[in-house]
């Protein structure tokens, strides 16, 4: 049970490599909490950004010129500006404009806390890219397949849901993988508004324990593993979606 902490403690005593996270319960606790927040950011922003992408691409192909230009404007704004600036804008800009409650002691309790703002801005940022990614997949679905659905009585919405989107997803999955991997790595920007995610936690540990190099290694390994897991899941998904006898 204590083998791992003991090993790292003796590693420190013999070599000077100080991996406090693996033998100091306090640091370990901070690291694990950081990891939990990173996972929370990753899962929620991926899900929300996928919904934004699917809905945005549906509107982009729709009849309403007004809604189309709203989506196009959204994509332009969120693709053409740096994600860190977006996070600052939401947290320091919008966050202070929104109404806030006050505690009995007069402390300001904002409507959304920093974790929630990070989720909102990162999901919008990745969602803007997902709109374009889904659109590329939708454009690869043959018009005649959609006509077949229409002639069976499908409305545009139902044809999108049951025919176009499932086929488009298969086409755009490689591009989607890339964007979601980028999104996972971009969650570290939440550090800038003091969201205690992995980078933030690890930074706290190294500034107190004076072990920057060691914690840097832990940090890099953590993200390498997280991205590896995400890639593995996406590839599993890609395989599960493969259609027998169907290739482009």
């Amino acid at each position, binding site marked *: 049970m204590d083998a791992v902490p003991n090993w790292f403690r003796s590693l420190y005593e013999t070599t000077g490599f100080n991996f406090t996270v693996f033998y100091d319960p306090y640091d370990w606790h901070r690291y694990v909490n950081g990891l939990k927040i990173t996972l929370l950011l990753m899962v929620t922003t991926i899900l929300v950004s996928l919904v934004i992408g699917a809905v945005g691409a549906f509107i982009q192909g729709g009849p309403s010129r007004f809604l189309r230009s709203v989506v196009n404007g959204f994509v332009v704004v969120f693709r053409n500006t740096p994600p860190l600036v977006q996070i600052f804008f939401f947290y320091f800009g919008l966050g202070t404009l929104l109404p806030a409650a006050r505690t009995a002691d007069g402390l300001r309790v904002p409507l959304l806390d920093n974790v929630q703002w990070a989720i909102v801005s990162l999901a919008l940022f990745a969602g803007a890219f997902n709109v374009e990614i889904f659109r590329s997949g939708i454009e690869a679905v043959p018009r005649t397949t959609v006509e077949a659905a229409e002639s069976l009585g499908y*409305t545009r919405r139902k044809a999108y849901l049951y025919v176009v989107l499932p086929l488009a997803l298969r086409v755009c999955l490689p591009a989607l993988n890339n964007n979601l991997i980028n999104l996972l790595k971009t969650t570290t920007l939440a550090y800038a508004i003091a969201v205690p995610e992995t980078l933030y936690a690890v930074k706290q540990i190294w500034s107190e324990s004076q072990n920057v190099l060691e914690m840097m290694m832990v940090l890099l390994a953590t993200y390498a593993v997280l991205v590896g897991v995400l890639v593995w899941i996406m590839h599993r998904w890609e395989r599960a979606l493969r259609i027998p006898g169907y290739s482009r």
Partner: protein
Amino acid sequence: MFDGASPMLSVPPADLPIVQLLDVHKSFGEAEVLKGISFAVRRGEVVCIIGPSGSGKSTLIRCINALVPLTSGMIRVDGIEVADPKLDKLALRRKVGMVFQQYNLFPHKTALENVMMAPIHVLGQDRREVEVRAHALLAKVRLAGKEAAYPGEMSGGQQQRVAIARSLAMRPDVMLFDEVTAALDPETVKEVLVTIRELAEEGMTCILVTHEMNFAREVADHVYFTDRGVIVEHGPPESLFSSAVDPRTRRFLSQVL
């Protein structure tokens, strides 16, 4: 005379044309593809539309189920005005089934699912009941045992028969066939034609755009020859194929027969 419904109400419904076209025009930009097409199809009738490529046959058939909007004229399908801006497309498409040249099956679904999808998604019918019907329809088009196959695993002829079963699952009153054998290997053409012939014999109203002249001659009650957006000549197949009057019809028939 086609606007007033009242004088026609006295006619027994069986004699009313189920599909009626009057002076149908269709332009794509500058190009006028249909230049005043009129005809009527009675319930249970089998009508073939023949003619050279680019004569507007496919556009014509696609106007009937509102895949292509008319420029002017009237199309009425069992009391539904297709050109009505407030057209209930679902009501129309429940009555009119369509089979395409390229089959257009949903590639991510098995044969059985392809047949089951529309009744469940569009009509909201009970899944188990639809499944029973889908099995029967696949057996009817001689694809029992192929339920679990994906479109990409089937031959063109098999896919086309799934497409026919998929259309029939919506229980249409009229079936449109848009050159459904044109993309098939010669040996699989026959299996599709056999399926269509059986449908016709069961009394399904069928409108076919086809290049299969022998099939048209055997199955059709009435054949329309179109060229450059107009109906040049029409009649029962025995007279049209053996004693066409118009030189354009004669030239076309001499090339394809």
